[in-house]
């Protein structure tokens, strides 16, 4: 098992009566690009604040880059670049002056190279031409880019990005994606919270899904999607088909979205569906072979791969209203 860049156990944050984060057990492997998903108000930003030592956990513990947080903020945070709940700058200073200021706050950032590093970070996010402009006069996307530049001032082992593409134009979004990829190629672990599932599918290797403060799924992207895939068997022998599928260990008895179900279709055949994944990870060809061997007249067979979006909705519910 690879080392973990972020590891939490029972991490909990309570605001007065409300539990914002509830017993979170995160495991973010080193070198991964980890998508942190969840509806509005599900506790993503609160979790990130606890990981960075901005907020004290009510219970549980968090380790970042192998050290306990928040006790080791001074040794851990110089190795972490972060964007938390959007960028924030002093509006009366230029973009460049703002970056210099945050850099001066980092005791480990060499003063001699400050100008070079600031210029390079600005260049990297395409802000060189706006470097001298007051941040108060920046557009939303420009501030977002400056926030990313701030996270990139030093070489980082871990980047924590809370909705990094918020407010960016399509070019900016693409560049962030390629930036994340290139950073990951260089060995940086990237922990990125997002609502844009298409985006996550494109760059992430792993993901976790939060819902109302709880972790409802976590794993590699394939694991997440895989456990959402379904087998569809069209057959006039539904009873026997169900028995075979059950024998193969495909999940039975799950509620609504899962388990083995059958639906009558127009031709009189029945459509038997079962959730793929779970403990027994049977290959599709093995399932067909088993069905045929058992004498099931298979008239149609299909594996329906759930999109991450479908999986997300399955996990966090259809409702549009914020649960708070």
């Amino acid at each position: 098992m690879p080392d973990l860049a972020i590891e939490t156990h029972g991490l909990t944050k309570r605001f007065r009566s409300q539990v914002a984060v509830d017993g979170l057990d995160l495991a973010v492997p080193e070198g991964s690009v980890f998508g942190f998903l969840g509806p509005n108000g599900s506790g993503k930003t609160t979790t990130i604040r606890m990981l960075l030592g901005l907020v004290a956990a009510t219970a549980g513990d968090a380790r970042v880059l192998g050290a306990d947080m928040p006790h080791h903020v001074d040794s851990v945070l110089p190795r972490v670049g972060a964007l938390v709940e959007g960028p924030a700058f002093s509006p009366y200073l230029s973009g460049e002056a703002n970056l210099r200021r945050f850099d001066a706050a980092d005791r480990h950032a060499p003063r001699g190279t400050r100008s070079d590093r600031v210029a390079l970070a600005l260049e990297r996010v395409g802000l060189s031409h706006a470097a001298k402009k007051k941040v108060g006069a920046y557009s939303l996307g420009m501030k977002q880019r400056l926030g990313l530049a701030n996270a990139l001032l030093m070489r980082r082992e871990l980047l924590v990005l809370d909705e990094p593409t918020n407010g960016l134009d399509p070019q900016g979004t693409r560049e962030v994606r390629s930036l994340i990829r290139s950073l990951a190629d260089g060995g940086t672990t990237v922990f990125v919270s997002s609502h844009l599932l298409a985006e996550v599918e494109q760059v992430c290797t792993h993901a976790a899904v939060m819902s109302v403060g709880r972790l409802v799924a976590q794993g590699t992207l394939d694991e997440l999607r895989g456990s959402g895939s379904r087998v569809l068997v069209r057959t006039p022998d539904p009873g026997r088909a169900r028995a075979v599928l059950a024998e193969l260990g495909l999940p039975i008895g799950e509620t609504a979205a899962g388990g083995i179900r059958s639906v009558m279709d127009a031709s009189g055949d029945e459509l038997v569906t079962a959730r793929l994944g779970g403990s027994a990870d049977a290959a599709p060809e093995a399932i067909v072979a088993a069905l045929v061997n058992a004498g099931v007249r298979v008239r149609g067979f299909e594996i329906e791969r759930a999109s991450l979006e479908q999986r997300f909705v399955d996990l966090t519910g259809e409702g549009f209203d914020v649960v708070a």
Partner: protein
Amino acid sequence: MSSREANDGPVGVDARVGRSGGAGGGTLSLLGSELLTLFRRRRTWALLGALALIPILIALAVRLSGGPPTGRGPAFLDQITNNGFFVGVTAILVAIPLFLPLTIGVVAGDAIAGEASHGTLRYLLIAPAGRIRLLLVKYAAAAVFCVAATLTVVVVGTLIGWALFPIGPVTLLSGATVGVGDALLRFLAIAAYVTVSLLGLSAIGLFLSTLTTVPVGAMAATAILAVVSQIVGALPQLEWLHPWLFTHYWLGFGDLMRDPIVWDTFGDNALLQAGYLVVFGALAVGRFLTKDVLS
């Protein structure tokens, strides 16, 4: 964002300027950056400009009204027409009860709350600036502002007095007369006295600033405390409390205008202010170390 740079990947910024090279910036570097930020702000210059207006208005009023005023108004006022040097001293006397505390309140009250309201506090902390280090730097910057504020009043006052009125040896409270050089040194000593007087208030402002994310609240509370303390100091019924008020010695710099100079009040004042600094500094640290930064 140019693709070239993006694809440069982590090699981009870091291979060229590796983190191993060169010493990191220390606390002084952070203080330098903080002072640069403070004095690059238009508001800071507006505050200093307002303070500079006090001696200018006094000098112009005395000058335009002609003859010496008739014993009313702040101490030293009637001396100005004889000796322009008294403009600075008169102005500082006028500024102490309200104007100086107001400007200190703005700077000290803004220290943490202002960063919180801009959201920059979280980025300073994850830089990481270190919570105690950030408080120290913020306090030091407020103290530097105290120096700038008192010097503004005294220096502008002396200069405009010099320009508009006759200048000459200064007659002290003890009746002795000292030369111009000696008088200037005494004015600097007064500026130092007033600066020290404001250090306790700065610590109070810094503490209040850690309590809120609304800077105006901390600013107003700081200024109001200064006024309340002076009112309490004027109530004879509360005399037992007076020696403990941070405003107790605020107007006590007359001893610096005697010959020889009496330093007792200076020492007592410094001790009292140090006490306030320790108490409210500790409160600020205690509060800030455990504060959840949610802004």
